[in-house]
């Protein structure tokens, strides 16, 4: 039993901290305000290998592991949850299903360019009528000679427009329900594929969240990912991994808000002393710090199990549930500790509180996480 990071992980944390402080932090408020995707930061991340952390060297990655990946998403999200989710969606929702389900040709064709960051990746499952009940897919894929023809619409797709590769789910056999869904690798320039309206959001406002439109989109048969009609399982397994990424993002948001709050409560004086001297402050911060630390241990446990190739679905749900709810609580209280200043955009906790909310919703709502945990408990 050992709770320490390895020397390699600690050195990696030192590097990502420095990178986040110097490259991510200075842009965080601006990209939120302007609702602008931080493409320049993604390019900088690509240059040092952050876009392919847990990808084997033979596929152009850094040969790291999922623990390192969670460290990266956490450290980046301490300052900017938008940048954190761009990395998370790219790694967990696009590269991971390709590595886990792709043929050798598919992996050779797509993974090296994604891992190097030359291409950004995305994932499309959600539809207007298929959110938590993802089996209600209306996007259809019909065989036509050497191709599949896709028709339908996906919504709320992270990295949309900036991504070159999309993992898309569509019905190939409607009569079979979720056993009739297949996964496809769709390139941004495939005929009939276009990007629809961009969402205006409460938080992670720099993240590109758009609609994807498929109008007789022609996808070559060799771009079927995994077996025909086995896409739902791919989607669920991919989301298990994605939850570790989002939990890391939530953890980062919580830690970032805690760091700001510690700094502020020590500086801010009321009634003749710093507000950190009040027991009300101390007890609340002690509870929150405990929750943050517990979130981190849950995140690392899930990542560790994934690295060890052990089942991790339940642990992924737990870390996502707990870290997301901790992020929401921490950021809400961070605003409260900051008082009126906290409600303004002069201080980052206002943005952090808006950013935290989505972590309780996307890649499985907190309710879905409870369903997953209970199902595993009561099976």
């Amino acid at each position: 039993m050992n709770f320490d990071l390895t020397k390699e992980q600690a050195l990696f944390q030192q590097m990502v901290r420095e990178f986040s402080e110097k490259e991510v932090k200075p842009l965080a408020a601006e990209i939120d305000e302007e609702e602008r995707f931080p493409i320049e930061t993604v390019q900088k991340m690509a240059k040092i290998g952050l876009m392919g952390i847990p990808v084997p060297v033979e596929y152009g990655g850094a040969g790291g592991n999922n623990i390192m990946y969670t460290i990266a998403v956490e450290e980046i999200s301490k300052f900017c949850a938008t940048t954190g989710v761009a990395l998370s969606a790219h790694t967990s929702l696009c590269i991971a299903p390709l590595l886990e389900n792709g043929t050798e040709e598919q992996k050779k064709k797509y993974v090296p360019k994604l891992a190097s960051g030359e291409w950004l990746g995305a994932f499309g499952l959600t539809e207007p009528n298929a959110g938590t009940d993802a089996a209600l897919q209306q996007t259809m894929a019909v065989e036509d000679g050497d191709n599949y023809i896709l028709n339908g619409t996906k919504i709320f797709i992270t990295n949309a427009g900036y991504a070159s590769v999309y993992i898309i789910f569509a019905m190939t056999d409607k009569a079979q329900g979720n056993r009739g869904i297949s996964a496809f690798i769709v390139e941004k320039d495939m005929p009939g594929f276009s990007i629809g309206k961009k969402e205006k959001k409460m938080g992670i406002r720099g993240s590109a969240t758009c609609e994807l439109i498929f109008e007789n989109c022609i996808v070559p048969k060799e771009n079927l990912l995994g077996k025909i009609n086995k896409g739902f399982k791919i989607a669920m397994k991919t989301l298990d991994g994605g939850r570790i990424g989002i939990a890391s993002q939530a953890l980062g948001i919580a830690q970032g808000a805690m760091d700001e709050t510690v700094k502020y409560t020590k500086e801010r004086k009321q009634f003749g002393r710093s507000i950190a001297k009040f027991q009300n402050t101390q007890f609340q911060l002690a509870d929150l710090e405990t929750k943050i630390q517990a979130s981190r241990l849950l995140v690392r446990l899930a990542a560790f199990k994934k690295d060890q190739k052990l089942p991790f679905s339940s642990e992924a749900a737990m870390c996502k549930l707990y870290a997301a709810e901790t992020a929401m609580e921490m950021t809400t209280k961070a605003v409260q500790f900051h008082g009126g200043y906290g409600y303004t955009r002069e201080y980052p906790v206002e943005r952090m509180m808006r950013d935290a909310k989505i972590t309780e919703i996307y890649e499985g709502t907190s309710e879905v996480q409870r369903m997953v945990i209970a199902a595993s408990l009561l099976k």
Partner: protein
Amino acid sequence: MKIVVCIKQVPNTTEIKINPETGTLIRDGVESIMNPDDKGGLEEALLLKDKYGAEITVISMGLPQADDILREALAMGADKAILLTDRKLGGADTLATSSALAAAIKQLDFDLVITGRQAIDGDTAQVGPQIAEHLDLPQVTYVENIEFDGKKTFKVKKATEEGYQLLKANAPLVVTVLATANKPRYMSVKGIVEVYHKEVEMWGFDKLHISEDKIGKKGSPTTVFKSFSRGAKAPGEMFEVGPEEAVGIIVSKLKEKYII
């Protein structure tokens, strides 16, 4: 091209605490980092490697934990790392340090030796020039840019108080680099993953082929008489104005202090 870069592990603080009895630094509880000027020197070496191809050896003298900064240098792109570590090397002043480093460098094949201008813990700026003297090599200090003709001549941009000097010098050569020369690259993720599978060579006293009275405390003519923290200076005032308004402000400030 073969480049040797000297790097030092220093405490990451501008408020260094000093043990009042021994006059030495208290390092406990202070994070250690690669000295900023040395990191600038390493980046210059890596830039030369990017452009012309080079093999870079980083070398440090210090406690075994200086392994950390050597690994950092390897993860940034250096090829080989050597740590001079031995009890006999302890308590060294700049002369004893440069003697030990020069004795090690002498055993390596090199075209260029790069050091940082000075370390943030001692601020002497002596070790680099002393290494050049021990090795009997030309030296250029306060360097901000190094170009190479691909054969044996370096074109070096040296910062002076008045501006810059552009100098040409042939290999082998010693330069000392400023942290402001560049923006050092980050360690690469792949570099970090691989770095603990690489070797940092540990060189003890026996490997240096140098007389014991030239190194460590014995080889250090400097004795610290007294160390103290300099009192805090009041923060300055910044005015971002045009030249004409600036003249007015300066004159009124000088009058305020009865200087004019």
